[in-house]
């Protein structure tokens, strides 16, 4: 597999009254063609900002720090001018968000909004764009697509709106779809529908997906690889089977022990002590050390680099240096 997207040492800075913070601080990963990479973490870990940075959509006063690199098949995304950026945004990289109601325009019909996306990327007539919109609605599994074309967003359920958002993103046949918590606002049965749709589209189109989520459950059995984020950094990265079989970073282990299970014996949950620190107050050394049950004396001062745990399995933890746990 060749790398479609490469992110190297991505740092994002926010200058605020309470000081400068780096909510994303040295993140590197790559996504191959057709691959599904899951970026997992809790609120405030920087996963959504990382996604926005890929399309250069960081809201001010946030900035990408010089020295960061984002490459789409070798093209330096951070060096592009406005016109060239448009040829990537929404065209080669599509994006869907958690809340489809706020991303859709309430005063335009579904047909208008999908056609707009079609015509932004292809020179076609309005009627041809409408035909394409209908095909896309069918592809994302909306029942009665002919009638639904002239619906407004408020006439649809949350699951349908997310399907419309996916249709808009697909209009340009992107090579990479960034899905930022695409099912978090949906009920579980609707979540299952949308995830099944994403799986199907990925298989049919060979489209790569960067799935951003807090839910390890939707990652298992879906993602090819998983990257776990904590406090602005990737703390562990591995293939999905490897990560769930041998979670190694104490944070990843803690997350897995916190999730209530639907099968097996009911035992007391083992939560991670404390809370995620704010980006303005990240501790020195390993950022997880104040909450870590396995921390060593050096963890308070020495920031661990990404160390190999096994084949294509890395983590930022000194335990990796002391051999397998």
């Amino acid at each position, binding site marked *: 597999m060749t790398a479609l997207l490469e992110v190297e040492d991505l740092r994002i800075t926010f200058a605020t009254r309470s000081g400068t913070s780096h909510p994303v601080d040295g993140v590197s990963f790559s996504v191959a063609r057709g691959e599904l990479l899951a970026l997992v973490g*809790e*609120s405030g870990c920087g996963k959504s900002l990382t996604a926005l940075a890929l399309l250069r959509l960081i809201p001010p006063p946030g900035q990408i720090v010089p020295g960061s690199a984002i490459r789409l098949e070798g093209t330096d995304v951070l060096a592009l001018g406005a016109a060239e950026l448009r040829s990537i945004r929404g065209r080669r990289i599509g994006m869907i968000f958690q809340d489809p109601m706020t991303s859709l325009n309430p005063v335009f019909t579904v047909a208008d909004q999908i056609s707009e996306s079609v015509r932004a990327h292809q020179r076609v007539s309005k009627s041809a764009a409408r035909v394409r919109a209908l095909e896309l609605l069918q592809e994302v599994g909306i*029942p009665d697509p002919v009638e639904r074309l002239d619906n407004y967003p408020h006439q649809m*359920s*949350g*699951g*349908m709106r997310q399907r419309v958002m996916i249709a808009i993103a697909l209009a340009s046949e992107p090579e990479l779809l960034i899905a930022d918590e695409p099912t978090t606002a949906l*009920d*579980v*049965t*609707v*979540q*299952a*529908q949308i995830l*099944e749709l994403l799986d199907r589209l990925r298989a049919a189109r060979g489209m790569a997906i960067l799935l951003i989520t*807090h*839910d*390890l*459950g*939707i*990652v*298992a*059995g879906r993602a090819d690889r998983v990257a776990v984020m904590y406090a602005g950094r990737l703390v562990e990265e591995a293939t*999905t*089977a490897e990560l*769930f*079989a041998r979670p190694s970073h104490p944070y990843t282990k*803690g*997350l*897995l*022990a*916190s*999730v*209530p*299970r*639907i*099968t097996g014996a*009911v035992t*007391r*949950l*083992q*939560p*991670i002590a404390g*809370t*995620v620190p704010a980006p303005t107050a990240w501790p020195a050394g390993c950022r997880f050390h104040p909450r870590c049950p396995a921390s060593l004396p050096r963890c308070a001062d020495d920031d661990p680099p990404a160390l190999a745990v096994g084949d294509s399995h890395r983590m930022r933890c000194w335990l990796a240096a002391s051999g397998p746990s």
Partner: protein
Amino acid sequence: MSAPLLEVRDLVKHYKATGFLARKTPPVRAVDGVSFTVGTGETLGLVGESGCGKSTVGRTILRLQEATAGSVCFDGKDLFALDASALRQARRRLQIIFQDPYSSLNPRMTVGDAIAEGMEIHRLAPRGEIPGRVARLLEEVGLDPAYAARYPHEFSGGQRQRIGIARALAVEPAFLVCDEPVSALDVSVQAQVLNLLADLQARRGISYLFIAHDLAVVRQIAQRVAVMYLGRIVETGPTEDILARPAHPYTQALLSAVPVPDPTTQRLRIVLPGDPPSPSNPPPGCPFHPRCAHPDKDARCSSDRPLLHTLGRGQVACHHAARTP
């Protein structure tokens, strides 16, 4: 067996349409005949998706909204027959915590004042003893007693939920309605709050009505579970029975949609078609029949509404339900 602490019988809550089309618009049948009991020191999980009426059940029990019909018997008293002052007395024993601790705490009240308010209203302690009691409550929910002087905005979501719990406990309730108390929290914090609720129950013998959409969370905390669909309970019984061998096709689908953080488990995935129907225009017969994939589905399902009947240790409302041994 002694009488249950709380007995809800045939609870109905309809919302009438207002405005000039009101006479033509059918009422929204948010809760349409719900009955259950909760014993002392017991937790009943009330599970369902958005709009199934589970939160309305919780609110009508406390008379935060007046029910359309039915009765709620708490501690031998008919709550719906109480006058305002008797209701206030009853509410001391019957408290509620909400999903969103951000909006349920007064931002201009210190945490200490918010916790003390209920004790003052019900004159539970002389003024001089109140600060000591507030400090003990903060400790009991795992917070620093010094936080009493701070304001809600200074706390994280998990800490605010702990404050909400301390506030409810201040009046020494026998029964706590927990309306999606961990849905807005990150997994690691969710586990902390679930453990806290379990500890408080073990220590104080409080009963919970635990309203949630997440079956895995309910499994962690509830001895019995009731599954709601479109304003009615479709299946109820001991949690272990219902989750190990769900009998109602809706419970089966809901369970199969729960994401499991383990890529090695092979599970049957039932993806339900469509969205739940509107509670103002429920389908005739079984409310679930338009989405049901039961192999024995027949004409009776679309004409006769199935009533809850006993099956094993639980009850189920389905013409064709059978619990495999």
